[in-house]
């Protein structure tokens, strides 16, 4: 079931075309990730969907609700954690949550939210004194207070250490278990791969590609890069290089000293052949690996640009 549909969104700020043409639809219960470099138009897209910025063009539907006619109903249905996690610094997490709860007819109990975002312990400290990760968790908590069906998280993990990031991942996975729909933006490919059901890669205001992470990677190519290095130095690498060039599934090789790179379409078979060869010649293998393709490669393949976090 589609809970949100976005078609041909466009938005310019003066001469800057922040969003050129973005369309997608989000299914109930999935984690939908929008990933892209700085200035790609992620926040602008979300803000149009959240009703903060009016699009120059395009349509936004929440099921059969749209902003022109059902603004209040939509506001009750969605929970938002904006990129600049805005909250009252001189109030405590508990007070912030209670205040936001008063905006809704049927908010969830504050204690429950504090529990979900693991802030029970800090509920009486001023927000000013919270750490970045705690603050971010409170921002997510504020988005959850109305028990929304659809949750928007704009870069919830940017600037956090690995531990804090993992905390937030747990929250997102927990929301998924509860059957919520989450729309997430991030800079981290790893995060997108790990959390999302589907990933939408955007760059310069356009959707580059959209699919499940594994489908995207598979779509990319069926070749894998095998790396191998030898204990017996250049001689062994040279021999192995010559040998692998003969193999059918190998398209290309590269050698640097005792290290060898081999691109093969059937990496398992190629590896077997290679090990047979090294055993026959009694060459010692120091290291061997098959490099995993990642979303990063997808990005590079589609844009021809280097990926920067």
């Amino acid at each position, binding site marked *: 079931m589609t809970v949100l549909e976005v078609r041909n969104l466009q938005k310019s*700020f003066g001469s800057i075309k922040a969003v050129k043409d973005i369309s997608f639809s989000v299914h109930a219960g999935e984690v939908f990730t929008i990933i892209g470099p700085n200035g790609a138009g992620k926040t602008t897209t979300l*803000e149009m969907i*959240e*009703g*903060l*910025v009016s699009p120059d063009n395009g349509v936004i539907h929440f099921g059969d609700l749209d902003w022109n006619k059902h603004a*209040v109903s939509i*506001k*009750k249905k*969605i929970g*938002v954690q*904006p990129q*600049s996690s*805005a*909250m*009252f*610094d*001189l*109030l405590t997490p508990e*007070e912030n949550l*209670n*205040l*936001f*709860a*008063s*905006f*809704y*007819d049927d908010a969830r109990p504050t204690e429950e939210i504090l529990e979900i975002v693991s802030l029970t312990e800090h509920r009486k400290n*001023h927000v000013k004194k919270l750490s970045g990760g705690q603050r971010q968790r409170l921002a997510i908590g*504020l988005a959850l207070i*109305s028990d929304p069906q659809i949750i928007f998280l704009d870069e919830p993990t940017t600037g956090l250490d690995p531990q804090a990031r993992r905390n937030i991942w747990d929250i997102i996975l927990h929301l998924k278990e509860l059957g919520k729909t989450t729309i997430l933006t991030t800079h981290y490919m790893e995060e997108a791969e790990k959390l999302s059901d589907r990933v939408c890669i955007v760059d310069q205001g356009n959707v580059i590609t959209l699919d499940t992470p594994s489908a995207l990677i598979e779509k990319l190519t069926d070749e894998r890069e095998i790396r191998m290095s030898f204990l017996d130095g250049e001689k062994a690498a040279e021999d192995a290089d010559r040998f692998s060039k003969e193999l059918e599934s190998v398209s290309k090789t590269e050698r640097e000293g005792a290290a060898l790179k081999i691109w093969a379409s059937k990496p398992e078979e190629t590896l077997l052949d290679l090990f047979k060869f090294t055993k026959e010649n009694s060459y010692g293998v120091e290291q061997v690996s098959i490099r995993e393709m990642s979303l990063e490669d997808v990005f590079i393949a589609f844009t021809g640009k280097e990926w920067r976090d």
Partner: protein
Amino acid sequence: MCLLHLRAKNGGINIKFNQFKMMFLAQLKLTLREKQAWFWGIFFPVILMVIFMVIFSGNSDEEFKTEVAIVDPSPNPASEMMLSQISGLPVFEVKSGKPVTRDKAEEWVKEQEVDAAIILPETAEESSVFLVVNKENEQGAAAQAVSGILDKFVQQANLLAAGASPKYDLQYESITSGTNELDYTDFLLTGMIALSIAQGGMFGMVDLVEMRRKGLIKRLRMTPANMGIFGLSDMAMRLLFSIVQIVLLSLIGVLVFGANLYINPFTLIIIFLIGALSFNALGYFFSSFSKTTEAYMGVANICSFLMMFLSGVFFPIETMPEWIQPISAVLPLTYFADGLRESMVYEAGIATASLWAGIAVMVIWGAVTFLLGSVLYKRKAIAADR
């Protein structure tokens, strides 16, 4: 069916009330926890008032000088005696040092070169001393002060005039007499109250700039929160803070410095509400075009500084150079301070023409700045600020 409908409606009102309550409580906590608010709203006005009172009100009569003209139409023993005594009063500075003709004196009053002309009795039998003041200033502090002092003086003159029956009484020309005399302490106290409420309004709206900068306004707009209720709770909080200011400053003024207050509560409430609202509107206007807190504070500082000295907070406007006085006449603080004096010291009823004129000036300031601010906010809301 009907019942159900009613319940739903009730629910709506309950939610709104709950929202108001929660927002008000949040504002209250924010204010209590904001050290700046305490310093500028409470501590600073108190210190400023104490300093001024200690410096200037020790011997208030001497410090308060006002320039008068004296007319002695036909010198007689009684008028001679009064003349010498009035000239001896340190508060009065007699222009040109000696009596002048009535025409000359009235001209000076008209030109506002003197605050009042004192016309001495023409014969020893006549029992009236006339006081001529400029109509524009008849409610002014100087006119009030002159009449207050003369009133006292005439009583003394009566005693001196040997006869047991009171002989002289003060008559006013074109002034309505204040029933109570204005002491510098009272003057400063009411001025300080006006100033601190005005500053509360002009500086307080910096919160709005800060909230916008942090994206909090945007954040609230993402929720179904009613922004009207938010504004209302904010206003209620500010009024409460101003009431604390009034009570605290009045208590210090009365208990420590012996100020005399004769309050007309109805007039006071009207003046207080209108003044507080219009200065908040002014702050709202500043916030609508200030991108940063620094920019806002700059504007608020300049305005508050100008008003502080041009609106008769510390010294009567009549004592300032003439060319400045027209500026004072358009500033809202002038009328707020005057209004508070009328209602807190003179116990004035609301029906006075000059009070209404003052209220009108404040309402105009409030309405115009509020409308301008709203327009600017609307226009900026289109290009979302971040």
